[in-house]
């Protein structure tokens, strides 16, 4: 597998609501910016294939891919939808390029979550209709609660530790223009809150945001022609599903991250991830998930110890979500992986590091994760 290069990124939104645009206008804005960032390429001539990452029920449209082509420039071109996190879409882009059918691919993902009136009911529809949905769970976070308790017991994580994650990420978010939910909050503020579902309070759970992100990737040779040396490399990519059946997936462990990261590390020839990376951008839509994912990614065998010692802070040994992660920025549905990738790109472009890890999760009730190894050429 050849590496692929990120040659352009564009985004719009990252706010709880975006009433000034439709989802299509939002994607148009993000795509226009991405094509400008990619050296003012013309998608109608220069992009070989287009991928949209979306799910029907989030969109409120049956067959949502009908509305994919126009705003990304993909009409009458090879355009398709990957119903998954944007990083899974990026994996398909890598395959388009490596199979030889494309040199440049545009990947789009977006969230217009502010249009959704009954979010938790939609999440309930993603639970197994016979074994889980039929018990009519009153709180969509209950699976996260079960997972969190098992993880915390196994690794000796306390409620205070989760609060430290929230404090760290919400403060880190103050350094990013995309952070709608950043604040100078203290761990004690988190501990004072009531539980939404034990052991998680409202502040342990990342809120949702509207946003659209388009990423343009190319094979390295084309990237050099288009952007000289101003591009980043995806040197490893992996994605995996543990099991989507609650009763057969491994609770308390991010097994999907372990499998996905092994795939990405193998591709990128990463032997010691802790030493290899300058920073980690990892899904933290529940505070405990940051720690659980770091274990699955083999970044930390004892994430609590590292957290308490400050090793995950922006000045620490291995910064984790130095721009705030989802707890500060919110969760833009299928664009979640790309929102972490955006942070990673900013981190490298700002000269803070050269090799970073990006890891995304699809959220409740899935056990699916995707991992990218991003580095300067």
């Amino acid at each position, binding site marked *: 597998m050849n590496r692929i290069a990120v040659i352009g990124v564009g985004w719009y939104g990252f706010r709880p609501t975006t009433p000034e645009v439709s989802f299509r206008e939002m994607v148009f804005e993000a795509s226009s910016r991405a094509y400008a960032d990619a050296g003012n390429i013309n998608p109608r001539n220069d992009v070989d294939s287009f991928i949209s990452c979306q799910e029907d029920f989030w969109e409120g449209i*049956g067959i949502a*891919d009908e509305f994919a082509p126009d705003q990304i420039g993909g*009409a*009458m071109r*090879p355009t398709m939808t990957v119903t998954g996190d944007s990083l899974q879409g990026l994996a398909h882009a890598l395959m388009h390029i490596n199979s*030889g059918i494309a040199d440049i691919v545009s990947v789009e993902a977006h969230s217009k979550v502010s249009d959704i009136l009954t979010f938790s009911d939609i999440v309930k529809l993603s639970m*197994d209709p016979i074994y889980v949905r039929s018990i009519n769970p009153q709180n969509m976070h209950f699976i996260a609660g079960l997972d969190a308790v098992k993880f915390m017991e196994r690794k000796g994580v306390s409620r205070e530790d989760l609060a430290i994650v929230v404090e760290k990420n919400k403060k880190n978010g103050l350094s990013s223009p995309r952070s709608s939910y950043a604040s100078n909050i203290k761990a004690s503020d988190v501990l004072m809150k009531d539980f939404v579902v034990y052991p998680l309070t409202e502040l342990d759970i990342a809120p949702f945001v509207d946003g659209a992100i388009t990423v343009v990737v190319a094979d390295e040779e084309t990237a050099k022609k288009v952007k000289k040396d101003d591009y980043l490399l995806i040197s490893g990519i992996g994605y*995996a599903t*543990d099991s989507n059946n609650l009763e057969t997936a491994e609770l308390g462990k991010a097994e999907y991250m372990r499998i*996905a990261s092994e795939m990405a590390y193998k591709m990128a020839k990463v032997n010691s991830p802790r030493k290899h990376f300058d920073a980690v951008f990892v899904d933290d839509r529940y505070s405990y998930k940051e720690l659980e994912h770091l274990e699955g990614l083999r970044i930390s065998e004892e994430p609590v110890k590292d957290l308490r010692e400050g090793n995950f802070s922006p000045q620490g040994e291995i910064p984790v979500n130095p721009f705030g992660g989802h707890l500060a920025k919110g969760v833009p549905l299928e664009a979640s992986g790309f929102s972490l990738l955006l942070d990673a790109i900013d981190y490298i472009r700002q000269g803070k590091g050269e090799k970073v890890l990006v890891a995304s999760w699809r959220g409740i009730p899935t056990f699916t994760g995707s991992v990218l190894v991003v580095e300067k050429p």
Partner: protein
Amino acid sequence: MKVNIHLNKRVAIIGAGMTLFRRRLLETPQEIAWEASNKALEEAGLELKDIDCVVIGSAPDAFDGVHLKGEYLAHGSGGIKKPVSRVFVGGATGVMTAIAGWYHVASGLCQKVLAVAEEKMSPDRPHPQAVFRYIWDPILEKPLNPNLIWIFAMEMHRYMAKYGIKKEEIALVSVKNKRNAINNPYAQLGANITVEDVLNSEVLVWPVQLLDVSPVSDGGAAIVMTSEDVARRYTDTPIWVEGVGWTLDNTEWPGRDLAYPRYVEFAARMAYKMAGIERPDKEIDVVEPYDPFDYKELHHLEGLLLAKKGEAPKLLKEGVFDIDGDIPSSPSGGLLGVGNPIAAAGLMKVISIYWQLKGTAGKMQVKRPVHTGLAQAWGDLMQAGTVIVLRN
């Protein structure tokens, strides 16, 4: 799109499996997916543990009534502790699933891929048509509450009007495909019907009548795709993927020429270029065009450049597309005869070609020797075309 004429890696299909296509299967969607997957693995001589990656295809989520349907189907498709993803282009998803399986292997990411398509439409009450109320532009079209058959009636009418085609000529597709389906052990609606039967069937939206339309179905289909060296180890008769193509037209269907599927032509040209096909009407030995409506088979045969614009009905009448004709079309019985579990129906078309080229199509086997076959699917707001060319 850049088309790599010298493909990086050859990809073969070495196993295929299907469930029965029926109006109401008792199995859950996960069980349907597993039955098809299991059969495909068995034919390939592989076990689930041998599979590197799983690709899932399924059309609107609302059919199964499950959000994040790819995740849900992952379990039934054997996608546990593996890279799994779902691809989606509405009704064209079935062939797109095979295309995605192809590029999983052709890219070098995986050696052995299980590509699975499933659709269970029977949970929809009172009828899956209700799901199609939500496929329209929410601002411009939804307030009109259009019905899916309504827009296909417009398209069929336009096709007939532009080329002076009669309903009797179009009905011959339904007669041919339902007759072919009698030989297909998986088929839901094989029958010996006549043109008169079609013309006397209930009018749904003129000119679309009941027997112009494929039935609503549940069903699953799966194939195993591998790299060349793996294929050589497991079979003496691999069927090679020689060309793939897909195109999505713009969203605004009312602004299009409804008489001709240009997106199918674009997808076909991409696949032909990759497969080195310059005269498709001379080089394609057997074809499975997407036929949810009888006129669509004719429409697609023209888009695939197997007939000139407006001339497919004439060739049909001459027997060119019969099972013993020059270019047998839908020898499986197509969607009109086998059934239409949306995504699974598209992959069924790929499997049908695979069986034809392998020589294991049984009673469906076309009379003349075949070496190059094509499967095609269509979907979305009359805007998606997917094409795959196979050779033995």
